[in-house]
C-alpha cells in the first residue's frame, strides 16, 4: 500500500511563470518526508504536483517526471482523477463537507469507487478509518452529526480518516496543523507516527520543530527573491539536516536567521 516516489527534473509553471525549478528527489515508502522553507518557496505547489492537484488552478502545468513505483503520473493514459484516488491529500484548513454527517464524510471518497456499500460494510469502514485517525472514541456516539460540529483538530483528524478510508498509496499533508492549537497538533503528529507504518507520508510544514519531531527525511526549499522560481536546496536525513546541514542557506533558515 505504501509506495516510493521518484521525482526527476520537475519544473512547475503557472502560465509562463516558472514557480518551481528543476526538482529531483526521492521519497521512501513507509516514511515521513517533510518539506520546509520560507513562504512562497514553492513547497506547497510542489506537493500538489504529486497528486496533480495543481491542475485545479488554471494555467498550471509541469515538465518532468513523477514516478510512483515506476509509473509516471504525467505519462500518457494517466487520469488525474485516478491518480488522486491513489495519492490522498489533507489540507491546511480542515475541510470536512459541512453538508454531510461525520460518517458520510468518512465514506465520501470510498463511495466514489464503490457505488453499493452495504450497511455493515459501511459501518466497519467508518469505525476502522476513524480508529485509524484516533478519532473513534470522541465521535462514536454522534456519527450522524454534521462534520462541522467538531473542533478544528477533530475536523482535521476527520479529514485524515476520510483520506485513509480509500487506502491511498501515499498521503500528502499540506501544513495540516497550521490552523490548529498545540494540543490538536500533538494529536495529529502522534497520528502521523502511527500512519507511517502503512503509508508513505509527505508533509509540508512552516514549523521547523514539527519537521524535526515527525519526519525521517527533510527537504529544504528556498527562493532567491520575489518573482524567482523556488528551488530544492538540499535534502537529507532529518537529524543531519537539523545538526549539520551542508548548505549555508539551510543552516541560516533552521537556526532562525531568516524565514
Amino acid at each position, binding site marked *: 500500500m505504501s509506495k516510493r516516489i521518484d521525482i526527476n527534473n520537475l519544473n512547475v509553471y503557472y502560465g509562463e511563470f516558472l514557480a518551481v525549478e528543476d526538482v529531483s528527489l526521492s521519497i521512501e515508502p513507509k516514511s515521513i518526508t517533510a518539506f520546509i522553507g520560507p513562504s512562497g518557496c514553492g513547497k506547497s505547489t510542489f506537493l500538489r504536483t504529486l*497528486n496533480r*492537484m495543481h491542475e*485545479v488552478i488554471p494555467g498550471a502545468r509541469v515538465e518532468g517526471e513523477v514516478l510512483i513505483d515506476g509509473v509516471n503520473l504525467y505519462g500518457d493514459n494517466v487520469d488525474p*482523477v*485516478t*491518480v*488522486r*484516488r*491513489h495519492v*490522498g*491529500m489533507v*489540507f491546511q*484548513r480542515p*475541510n*470536512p*463537507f*459541512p*453538508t*454531510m*454527517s461525520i460518517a458520510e464524510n468518512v465514506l*465520501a*471518497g470510498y463511495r*466514489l*469507487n464503490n457505488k453499493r456499500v452495504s450497511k455493515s460494510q459501511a459501518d466497519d469502514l467508518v469505525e476502522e478509518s476513524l480508529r485509524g485517525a484516533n478519532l473513534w472514541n470522541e465521535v462514536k456516539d454522534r456519527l450522524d*452529526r*454534521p462534520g*462541522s*460540529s467538531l473542533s478544528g483538530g477533530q475536523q482535521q483528524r476527520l*479529514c485524515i480518516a*476520510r*483520506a485513509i478510508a*480509500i487506502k491511498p498509496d501515499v498521503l500528502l499533508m499540506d501544513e495540516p496543523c497550521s490552523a490548529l492549537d498545540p494540543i490538536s497538533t500533538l494529536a495529529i503528529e502522534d497520528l502521523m507516527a502511527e500512519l507511517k507504518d502503512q503509508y508513505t507520508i509527505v508533509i509540508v510544514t512552516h514549523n521547523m520543530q514539527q519537521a524535526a519531531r515527525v519526519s525521517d527525511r527533510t527537504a529544504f526549499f528556498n527562493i532567491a527573491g520575489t518573482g524567482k522560481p523556488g528551488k530544492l536546496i538540499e535534502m537529507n536525513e532529518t537529524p543531519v539536516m537539523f545538526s549539520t546541514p551542508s548548505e549555508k542557506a539551510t543552516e541560516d533558515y533552521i537556526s532562525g536567521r531568516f524565514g
Partner: protein
Amino acid sequence: MTQSTSSPEAPAENDYGTHPGAAANRVFRWLSTGAGALILITLAAVATFLLAEAWPALAMSSEELGETVSFIKPEDGQSLMEIIGYLIFGTLVISIIALLIATPVAIGIALFISHYAPRRLAQGLGYMIDLLAAVPSVVYGLWGVAVLVPFLTPFYQFLADYLGFIPLFAPPESGEIFTGRVAMSAGIVLAIMILPIITAVSREVFLQTPTLHEEAALAMGATRWEMIKMAVFPFGRSGMIGATMLGLGRALGETMAVLMIISPGLTFSAAILQPNQHNTIAAYIALQFPEANAMGVNSLIAMGLALFVITLLVNMLARWVVSRRKDFSGAN
C-alpha cells in the same frame, strides 16, 4: 466599580466619551432600521387594502353577486369562490409547468457558466442570459403566439395521438381545433421568462462554493461532476431553492404573456394540451378589469388576495425547506 476620586457633584471631563463617528453611526442605524420597517409597512398596507376591498364581494351571497357582477354566473356553477378555485388551479398548473422546465435548464446553464465554461465564454453567456430578463413580457406574449405556438402544435398533436390515454396529454374533444393556445404553451413561455432569474441566482451561489470543499472532493479522486454533487450542490441547496422560488414568484404573477397565449377556461382539468381549460389569476383580472363595475372590481380584488396568499404560502414553504437541515447547511 471602585470609588471615584473626583468630586461627587460633577463628573470630570474625560477622553473616553464621544468620538467623531458617533453621530453618523446613529444616523445610519436609524436609516437602515427605517428601510427595514418600510418593507413591513408596505406589506401590511397591501394586505389591508386587499382584505378591505375584497370583503364586500366575499361577504355577499353568490346569487346577489351573480346579479351585480357580469362575469360571475352562479347558474353555470361559477360562484366567486369556485372561480377563485379554478383560477388557483390554473395558475398553479401553468406555473408548475414553467418551473419544471426552467429549473433544470437554468441550473444546467448556471453550472456551465460557473464550473465548465472558459472564463470569456462564461461572461458572454451570463450577459446573454441577463438580456433575456430585459425582454418585456408583452414581447414574449407576441412571440409565443406568432412563433412558438404554431411551432409546438405538431408536437402537441403527436403527444396527444400517442400518449393521449394519459389524462395530462388528453387531446381536445373531436371537432375542436388543435390550436396550441393551451396551458402547456403558456408554461413554456413562462419558463423562458423565469429562466434568467433562476440562472443568475444559481450562478452566484455556485460561484461562492468554498474552494476548500471543491478541493476536498477533487483530492479524493472525484471527477468534476462528482465534485459538483459532493460540494457544489449541497452548498448551494438553499440558494437554488431561493432561486426557484423567485422564479415561481414571477411565474405566479405573470399576466401579459399568459393573457395573450392561452385560450382561457375555468375547469379543474389536468389536460394541459386542451384549449379553454385553464386561466391564471393575474390574466383573468387583467381580462375582466376594464369591463368590471364596482362590485366586479371587489370580486377581482378578492382573486388578487388569493394570489397574494398563494405566493406567501409558497415562500413560507421554501423557507421551511431551507431551514429543515440548518445544521448541515455549511453556514457555520
